[in-house]
């Protein structure tokens, strides 16, 4: 029997640089969850860095070009109308490129000039929709669809959902958010809360869900980053959370590394575990911890997961 084609049932996948390195576990778990849910990911051919922080520092329009090249390949060479980027930085940069190309003729001229020199078709705004992994699962499967597929409920796990500061900011580059019931909110994002609740988890009230993790200070002022992370983890624990769920490789690495650094440098003790939301969903869907990269996390959650019957 043929199933009705799902929204986002087959999308171009842009993992970005972090998911090939420190965020490898996010890459594995995203792909595993996609397989179980029947959401096909086709990696963008010959993709490049989105421009991230480094190129943006030198020339923001060059960063826009780099992001536009990824979207151009997906649209013009692979025929996709949707690009899914699980990293908040990549997602933010592709959305920003989309916005700038729609509103700034100067940016369009720069992107046209470089694309022509590089020998590929120029990306035109509106050719693709960029989505986050949260949109992909929320819109592609939804809570009810997820509930129907859960094999190991996350019942008994109390989760603080941490979205970081780039998923919703700046608001103007995310026109699809804040559109009323059902849409994502830039003030109080909830897609991750919704998905994990559908998988059985108990979400706690967590007031720092979009607060800065100090990622930008990591190299220039490590102590400041560590203090910001310690504060986030303290708030998560004070909220009653066992786990902080993440959806960005930079935030995730920052939380994990500064949890360790906080203990070494400031004697900070915390028991809260840090897991990607895709790892939690994968466990709920019956995937074993290893294919989800749980062993790659710095935050060791295996004993905890075993105690909950998930490993």
């Amino acid at each position, binding site marked *: 029997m043929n199933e009705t084609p799902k929204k986002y049932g087959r999308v171009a996948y842009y993992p970005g640089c972090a998911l090939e390195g420190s965020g490898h576990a996010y890459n594995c778990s995203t792909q595993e969850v996609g397989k179980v849910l029947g959401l096909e990911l086709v990696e963008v051919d010959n993709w490049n860095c989105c421009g991230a922080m480094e190129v943006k520092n030198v020339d923001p329009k060059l960063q826009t070009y780099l992001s536009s090249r990824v979207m151009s390949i997906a649209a013009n060479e692979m025929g996709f109308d949707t690009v899914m980027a699980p990293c908040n930085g990549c997602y933010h940069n592709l959305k920003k490129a989309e916005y700038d190309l729609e509103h700034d003729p100067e940016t369009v001229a720069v992107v046209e000039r470089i694309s022509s020199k590089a020998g590929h078709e120029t990306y035109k705004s509106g050719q693709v929709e960029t989505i986050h992994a949260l949109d992909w699962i929320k819109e592609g499967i939804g809570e009810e669809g997820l509930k129907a597929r859960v094999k190991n409920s996350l019942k008994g796990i109390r989760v603080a959902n941490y979205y970081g500061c780039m998923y919703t900011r700046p608001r103007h580059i995310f026109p699809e958010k804040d559109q009323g019931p059902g849409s994502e909110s830039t003030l109080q994002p909830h897609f991750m809360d919704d998905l994990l609740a559908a998988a059985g988890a108990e979400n706690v009230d967590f007031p720092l869900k979009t607060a800065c993790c100090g990622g930008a200070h990591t190299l220039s002022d490590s102590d400041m980053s560590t203090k910001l992370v310690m504060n986030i983890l303290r708030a998560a624990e*004070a909220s009653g959370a066992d786990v902080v769920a993440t959806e960005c490789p930079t935030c995730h690495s920052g939380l994990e590394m500064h949890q360790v650094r906080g203990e070494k440098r400031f004697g900070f003790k915390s028991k809260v575990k840090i897991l990607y939301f895709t790892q939690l969903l994968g466990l709920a869907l019956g995937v074993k911890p290893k294919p989800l990269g749980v062993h790659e996390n710095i935050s060791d959650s295996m004993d905890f997961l075993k105690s909950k019957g998930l490993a």
Partner: protein
Amino acid sequence: MTPLADIELEISAAAAMDDAKTGAERLLGLGEDVVCHWIAAHGETPTTDSREGFRLLALHRQGAKGVPSFNACRETCRELAYHLNLISAKPDHPEVASRLQMMGLIATHLYLFIAGKLEESELGDFCCSSRPLHAAE
């Protein structure tokens, strides 16, 4: 205005007050002071206006003008306002002490975020882009 160097300790003291309503009001005031330091450091006079009933939200709006990355503390300011309402509405709630403690963590985050940005204000007007580099373009 409370000196910036004293704010972290003042937050700890306010978050531990027996009178939760007074502690919450003090925490909101300390949050305002932190944002005032940011605005003053940029050569401006902190506004005395309020937004949605809170001076803190008006100050945040003022502090974010021309500095998009400052919006990363927008919800932190809103959470402070929310917690003040939460505590003031039910000062006898059995969880009022833990609510005040949480408000203290929120105020601490605002302090750390802004103190970090002040420290590095010569370096950037956006967490991912550098003012001196742009100026040299």
